[in-house]
């Protein structure tokens, strides 16, 4: 971090030279650090981290920038100070032995001192000058010079000497940090800001809903552009980390690559390929709608692609999630064992939002995942206001976008105003928003999933029924019929009903077919009998003909026989009879 933060000062033109502090994030906000060779005032209430800020300035200067420093303390003794910062891994004794740092404890005790007549603080100047010379210091801290006001009563002299002191520091060309306790109506109790006019940084420690948040603001920075917001900062094992609220520009890289959601029908709804890489996805729904399951299946899909996933669990423990997900056929444990999936679980109330954010930053920086899951973001509301959570998420999304990490948030909606606000608040930040709704009818609850938005994708506008089976998640088309949208068993029932109807219908058709067949058979039988009848009639008719024929033959025979018998001129008459017959 330090190496990146030193980059902005790479242009030492005739603009203000800056001294990098090495404090995480501060050099970004100040665009390079504190004004070099000039005093900077750090003010704030008790316990806001002034001394730590100052000591970090010196130690990091000595270690990272090879600039030795002098730490003049008016409050704590050198060894006390060393013990106090040892927890941050700063070895002040070693630094002092290596001549990289000098701690000078200035003790001012009013009870020991009697003032009479004119005096000046030349003694302090000589000490400071001597200390600076002894380590060739480039940095000086006075912590906190206001203690002089408690020890010495002649304000006129003090103020004149302070003015001289700051001039002295400038003349020595050291970058100085002066700490001052916050006053009631002024930045410092003794109005030190009057003397230090180059750079003033205000530290603040606020407690809202029992959760403390530290904030830092650059009140003034003469001759330089600087971030003007209140930046949250925190103090942890690595010292101070300041977080830029948002990156100054909206110019993160974008990708047209897409990543699968792990649920094939959902990918299809999203236009066949899933989410865009580096985008942010919000899954919101009421309790028990399967948000975690969607998140887990996304994580699972990521790990199956041999990519890395970091899962921030703010509700359940990793073991619990892993166990629960086996019930729907998602085996997260193997991914954990392989190291492609990492869990980061913390109770939201464990510390403030900013601490969470930094913890998330750090975990991401360390693990370098492709996909991040935050489950759920709504739990963070318990430690901050909606606005705070939103600003935290903005920064998180910003950061993730810059790193090209796809992120999935889950959000619990309770149908109350606060949470709807979160949804709305966050929804403008995210690229895709899946909403899972409870659809309750016929005495059962079913889940309907739809895509509220998906930037830059031709996504489906349909409500799908979201079913959780032992083999994973699936989306089913809901039944759209005359009775409206049907889901769950009602949908099944409807399907069954339709099947029954189909069976019945086929049966009916079969019967009709058979009837037709029968009718046909009857008709055919009828046709047959008619044919037979016709044949018999024909036969009858033929019989008459034959009989007549026979009769005629017999008649002719008889006649011939008769004529033969007569032997008369009956030949001719016999011929005419024949003729007549043939005519016939």
């Amino acid at each position, binding site marked *: 971090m330090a190496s990146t933060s030193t980059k902005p000062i790479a242009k030492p033109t005739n603009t203000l030279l800056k001294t990098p502090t090495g404090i995480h994030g501060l050099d970004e906000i100040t665009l390079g650090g504190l004004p070099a060779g000039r005093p900077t005032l750090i003010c704030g209430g008790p316990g806001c981290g002034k001394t730590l800020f100052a000591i970090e300035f010196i130690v990091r200067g000595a270690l990272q920038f090879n600039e030795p420093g002098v730490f003049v303390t008016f409050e704590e003794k050198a060894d006390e100070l060393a013990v106090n910062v040892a927890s941050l891994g700063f070895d002040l004794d070693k630094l002092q032995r290596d001549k990289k740092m000098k701690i000078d404890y200035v003790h001012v005790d009013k009870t020991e001192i009697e003032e*009479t007549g004119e005096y000046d603080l030349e003694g302090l100047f000589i000490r400071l000058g001597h200390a600076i010379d002894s380590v060739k210091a480039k940095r000086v801290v006075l912590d906190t010079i206001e203690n002089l006001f408690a020890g010495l009563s002649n304000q006129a002299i003090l103020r004149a000497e302070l003015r001289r002191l700051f001039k002295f520091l400038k003349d020595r060309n050291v970058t100085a940090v002066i700490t001052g306790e916050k006053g009631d109506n002024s930045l410092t109790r003794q109005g030190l800001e009057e003397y230090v006019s180059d750079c003033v940084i205000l530290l603040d420690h606020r407690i809202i809903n029992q959760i403390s948040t530290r904030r830092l603001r650059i009140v003034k920075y003469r001759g330089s552009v600087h971030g003007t917001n209140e930046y949250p900062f925190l103090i942890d094992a690595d010292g101070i980390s300041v977080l830029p609220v948002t990156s100054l520009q909206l110019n993160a890289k974008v990708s047209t690559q897409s990543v699968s959601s792990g649920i094939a029908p959902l990918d299809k709804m999203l236009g066949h390929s899933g989410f865009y890489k580096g985008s942010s996805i919000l899954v919101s729904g009421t309790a028990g709608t399967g948000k975690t399951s969607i998140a887990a299946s996304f994580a699972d899909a990521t790990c199956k692609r041999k990519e890395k996933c970091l899962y921030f669990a703010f509700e359940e423990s990793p073991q619990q999630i892993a166990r629960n997900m086996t019930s729907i056929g998602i085996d997260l444990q193997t991914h954990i064992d392989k190291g492609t999936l990492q869990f980061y679980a913390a109770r939201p109330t464990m510390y403030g939002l900013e601490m969470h954010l930094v913890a998330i930053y750090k975990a991401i920086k360390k693990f370098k995942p492709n996909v991040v899951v935050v489950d759920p973001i709504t739990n963070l509301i318990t430690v901050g206001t909606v606005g705070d959570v939103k600003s935290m998420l903005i920064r998180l999304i910003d950061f993730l976008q810059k790193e090209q990490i796809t992120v999935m948030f889950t959000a619990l909606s309770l149908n109350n105003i606060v949470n709807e606000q979160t949804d709305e608040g966050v929804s403008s930040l995210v690229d895709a928003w899946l909403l899972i709704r409870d659809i309750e009818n016929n005495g059962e609850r079913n889940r309907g999933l739809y895509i509220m938005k998906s930037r830059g994708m031709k996504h489906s506008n349909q409500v799908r029924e979201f079913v959780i089976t032992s083999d994973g998640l699936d989306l089913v088309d809901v039944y759209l019929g005359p009775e409206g949208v049907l889901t769950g068993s009602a949908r099944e029932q409807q399907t069954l009903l339709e099947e029954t109807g189909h069976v019945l219908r086929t049966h009916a058709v079969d019967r009709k077919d058979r009837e037709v067949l029968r009718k046909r058979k009857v008709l055919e039988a009828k046709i047959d009998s008619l044919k037979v009848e016709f044949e018999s009639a024909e036969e009858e008719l033929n019989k008459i003909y034959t009989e007549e024929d026979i009769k005629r033959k017999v008649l002719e025979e008889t006649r011939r026989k008769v004529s033969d018998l007569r032997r008369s001129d009956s030949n001719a008459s016999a011929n005419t009879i024949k003729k007549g017959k043939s005519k016939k």
Partner: protein
Amino acid sequence: MEQEYYELRLYVAGKTAKSVTALRNLKQYCEQHLKGQYSLEVIDLLVNPQLAEGDQILAIPTLVKKVPEPVRKIIGDLSNEEKVLVGLDIRPRQREN
């Protein structure tokens, strides 16, 4: 109390007007009140800056009474005799109430 021996140090930074005044005042008081029972060491911090730390010197000039205990410091040009004597515990403090 009269018999105690006083070990005094006066810290100065060069020969400034204040330092000179302070030294002159101090010598006068000592001769007057502590004749023969004090030692006075004048330390010039411009010459020996490293000595400033040991006695926690901030202001110049500073008179430090090392012995007898308790250690006391008197800063300024020592123009107020009463205050100096009280500060050195030569004269008891007169507190109100």
